[in-house]
């Protein structure tokens, strides 16, 4: 396929430049709370809101319930670049909710400049795999950054791993950005995929073994681990697991009691009341310019009086052979406070829990060990694409 396109991996619908411009031109009404699917409709409604300078309400919970509103005037553009130029001038605010995977959902707003791609050489022929929900900050980052560079997109959110593999090859996707949970479900691939040139992962803790598996599965890809949040967008990145703080950001972060804090000037438009924002991420310094994510502050639980970091348990579980994906979580218990549990997705049928338990016994202390282990077909994820704790 030549020229810009948005391919819907679920419905098979393709929106090319001509169709997009026609749909924008023919529209007389718009919704400022666009439903996420089909993704082509979502994109058209988003564009109309931005052109109207109307605020956009991105609710990942379900379809739009708001009323259609009349457009002030029809919008006509001769090409995509002209449309993109206009979109970048929009004064709309984009209203998001955090996924709620890390506590109560929070509301936050961003201006359009939070989604402008960094000023580096653009590769207009790039094709992105959109693996995030488009109403989430990460999905919107991928969608708008690609659109602003007139780069094509293949919508892969909620697609089965086998379909994802097929669509990546079919549409020659070369940029992929997703959560570690998404990649764990995707691996192992039937064969290494050499078309992927840039691969990003973020939103969750990443174990070194996953990075190594990704290097084998995508041998031509530059792999980047990204630290981003709905509150602040993309801030840091890494080739492995330790993030470098660029000099211009050094005065805007601090770490107290192992928790990362961000200066209010880095945050979303509506979160700039107090000077420092607690991210809820536990970090440790590697050196004075690099830090490593240890996990979430709330993912420390007490088991029989001992502090257990779920990420430490997760790192041990990730080493188990024959396991594609996993989820470590804590259940409240009247005797021990909490008890550690674990769901495992085996790569093949016939997997036995006994030997896996024995291996974990070698690696973990008694109070860290998952006591209830279940074999499951898949790990349940939230709309953010992250594994549910």
């Amino acid at each position: 396929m030549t020229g810009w396109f948005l391919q819907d991996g679920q419905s098979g619908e393709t929106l090319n430049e001509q169709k997009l411009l026609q749909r924008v031109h023919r529209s007389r009404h718009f919704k400022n709370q666009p439903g996420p699917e089909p993704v082509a409709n979502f994109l058209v409604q988003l564009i109309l809101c931005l052109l109207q300078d109307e605020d956009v309400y991105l609710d990942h919970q379900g379809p739009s319930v708001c009323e259609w509103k009349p457009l002030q005037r029809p919008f006509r553009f001769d090409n995509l670049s002209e449309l993109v130029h206009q979109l970048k001038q929009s004064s709309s605010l984009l209203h998001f909710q955090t996924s709620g995977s890390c506590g109560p959902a929070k509301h936050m707003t961003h201006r359009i400049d939070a989604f402008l791609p960094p000023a580096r050489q653009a590769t207009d022929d790039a094709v992105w795999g959109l693996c995030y929900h488009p109403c989430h900050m990460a999905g919107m980052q991928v969608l708008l950054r690609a659109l602003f560079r007139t780069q094509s997109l293949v919508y892969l959110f909620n697609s089965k791993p086998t379909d994802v593999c097929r669509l990546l090859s079919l549409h020659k996707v070369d940029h992929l950005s997703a959560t570690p949970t998404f990649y764990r479900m995707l691996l192992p691939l039937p064969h290494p995929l050499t078309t992927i040139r840039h691969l990003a992962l973020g939103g969750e803790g990443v174990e070194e073994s996953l990075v190594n598996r990704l290097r084998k599965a995508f041998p031509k890809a530059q792999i980047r681990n990204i630290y981003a949040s709905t509150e602040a967008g993309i801030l840091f990145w890494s080739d492995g697991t330790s993030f470098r703080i660029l000099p211009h950001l050094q005065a805007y972060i601090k770490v107290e009691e192992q928790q990362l804090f961000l200066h209010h000037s880095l945050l979303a438009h509506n979160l700039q009341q107090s000077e420092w924002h607690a991210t809820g991420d536990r970090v440790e310094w590697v050196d004075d310019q690099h830090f490593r994510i240890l996990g979430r502050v709330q993912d420390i639980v007490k088991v029989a009086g001992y502090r257990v970091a779920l990420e430490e348990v997760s790192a041990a579980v990730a080493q188990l052979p024959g396991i594609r994906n996993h989820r470590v979580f804590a259940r409240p218990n009247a005797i021990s406070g909490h008890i550690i549990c674990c769901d495992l997705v085996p790569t093949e049928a016939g997997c036995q829990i006994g030997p896996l338990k024995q291996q974990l016994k070698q690696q973990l202390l008694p109070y860290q060990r998952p006591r209830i282990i279940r074999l499951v077909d898949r790990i349940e994820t939230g709309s953010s694409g992250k594994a549910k704790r």
Partner: protein
Amino acid sequence: MIPKSLLDILQVVCEDKPQVPAWQSVGRHTHLRNDLQLDSLELAELSIRIEDAYGTDLFSESRIECVGDILERITP
């Protein structure tokens, strides 16, 4: 008579304990700590497994010491 489903749960929780008495001798008076030698983490595991199987959180409301105490709570 101990239901097989409860016996299965006890066997899973005790699977690493070679010194546990023969399962045919386990009865109402078998003591969870003294006879089955369950520590607090294993008792926690037992309570979660019973909660999942019978919908009853054993240890949140009453003192459970013997297999018979469990039977009283799970038997309708």
